[in-house]
């Protein structure tokens, strides 16, 4: 295959992945909607039903009895459809990334479009692993929705596949960028979990226990379980981010630019993100700060991460500016 056909394959695969993510997101939103009509009377089946959702992790197993169309079953089916479509979209975007690399003759991490597609690939991979391990299908709508938005925006900064600027020719590109992408992907999932936690925690506080039945929210895990998941994901992401932004980055900067740390806008914001997430991890161990305040800190950290990726790339200057469009 020529470079042009690789490039066109990549573009089609990414476009197809975007569409499939959108359909997956729709399936998860319909799952929300299906749960609205679950009457509290059905809720004694709650435990059994959540086991069914859990089984969605192994896709395609335990098919529903034919003709069963109760809202609960429909919700479970839609959840499985959503996860299956997410797997399909992930495969498509992996194809997109690989063929982009083939077209450019290098790892596809040289500009903002490529970072966006790679970042989403990793974020969805983290989510799918957690679906397998922890049954986090409830994050589906947020993760796929985020993927659609980011891939759509990535089209705005699309550049044709091409060679790298000289400063990027280094194996540190592999270490620094892949670690940053892994941490970023985990931050996406962690932010989704923290967001759900805030919603669920508020609902748990405001609804008397006897009314906590029926509807989508009460079929999700408890707020405490969401909080645990958010913590685990962030605890994984934080050391990876430390390595990517504060160790591998400066070492590469030393080779490429002759100094470890130069307060380049990208460096400053990477550090801000690090500080906020460090505050989050500390806050969880601090009385009065754990729970809601910590979750808000996690979302603030995610906002600084996003600003570093979008704002600094598009509006900032500095040595990382080739990472822009």
């Amino acid at each position, binding site marked *: 295959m020529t470079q042009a056909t690789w490039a066109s394959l990549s573009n089609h695969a990414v476009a197809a992945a975007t569409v499939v993510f959108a359909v997956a997101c729709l399936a998860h939103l319909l799952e929300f909607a299906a749960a609205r009509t679950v009457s509290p009377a059905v809720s004694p089946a709650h435990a059994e039903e959540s086991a069914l959702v859990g089984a969605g992790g192994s896709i395609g197993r335990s098919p529903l009895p034919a003709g069963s169309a109760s809202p609960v079953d429909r919700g479970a089916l839609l959840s499985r459809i959503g996860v299956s479509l997410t797997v399909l979209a992930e495969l498509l975007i992996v194809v997109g990334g690989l063929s982009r690399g083939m077209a450019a003759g290098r790892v596809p991490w040289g500009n903002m479009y490529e970072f966006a597609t790679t970042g989403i690939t990793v974020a969805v991979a983290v989510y799918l692993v957690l679906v397998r391990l922890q049954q986090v299908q409830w994050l589906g709508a947020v993760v796929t929705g985020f993927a659609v938005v980011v891939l759509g925006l990535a089209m705005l900064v699309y550049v044709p596949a091409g060679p790298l600027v000289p400063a990027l020719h280094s194996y540190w590109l592999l270490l620094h960028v892949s670690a940053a992408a892994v941490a970023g992907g985990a931050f996406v999932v962690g932010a989704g979990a923290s967001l759900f936690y805030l919603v669920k925690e508020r609902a748990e506080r405001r609804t008397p226990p006897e009314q906590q039945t029926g509807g989508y929210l009460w079929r999700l895990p408890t707020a405490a379980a969401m*909080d*645990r998941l958010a*913590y*685990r994901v962030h*605890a994984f992401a*934080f*050391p990876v981010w*430390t*390595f990517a932004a*504060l*160790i591998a980055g400066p*070492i590469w900067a030393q080779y490429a*630019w*002759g100094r470890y740390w130069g307060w380049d806008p990208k460096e400053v914001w990477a550090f801000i993100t690090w500080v906020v997430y460090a505050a989050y*991890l500390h806050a*969880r*161990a601090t009385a009065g700060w*754990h729970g809601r305040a910590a979750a808000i800190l996690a979302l603030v950290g995610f906002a600084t991460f996003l600003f570093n990726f979008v704002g600094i790339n598009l509006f900032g200057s500095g040595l990382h500016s080739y990472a822009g469009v």
Partner: protein
Amino acid sequence: MDGSSVYLVGQGYAPEVTVRDGKGDVVFSGAVPFLPEDASYTSSGVVKVPDAQPAQLGFEGFFLPTLAVNPQGVPVSAFPGAARPALLFFAYTGDLGLNSGAPQSVYSLDKAGLTQVRHKDGTPVRGLLLEGQTFQLPGGAGSITYDRTRKFARFQISHSSLKLVPLGAAATGVLGLIASLFLRPRRAWVQARSEGGRTVVEVARLDRASGADLGSDVSDLVHAVKGTSAT
């Protein structure tokens, strides 16, 4: 030095110019570094000639490695290589401000004491020189010759013999961080007291980090206690 790192931190063009003053004496000759401003190496810089008589001369302008004219009629550099190098400048006479002792940049003119050289109709004199050409300033104020094109490069040489120390410290720090995040210290209490002939055993656990399932922990501990007391 062995083990030193040499970095090329900047490069650009330094056109070599010769300036004659109103009397015809050569008052400046040499290469002047122009700072690159874009990917085509459109570079800006100044030539300061404090020795010119009767008044000091200053030139401010652009160096274009490959002269081209854009659709708006403005000269631009079309290519970073020196294919058709040109020097584009405005001229100033008067006091360069060098005698006041105040520090000033070698890449810009302090125009407080300078007046721009103008044609009789009042339009500013604007010079465009290709390699080897000479421009005569009006009114016999002098001339500037663009002799040839040279390049400059900036190097940084550094040697850090102990750089492995911070690396080791950072690696240790990350290992410690991982340990603090993933090792979960917990406390367990088993308290036994005699109460009216019975032995009451209390079991408690405290999690020092969040994220653990203490309920099952406690029941495990209770099972363990019951197991030992049975034997």
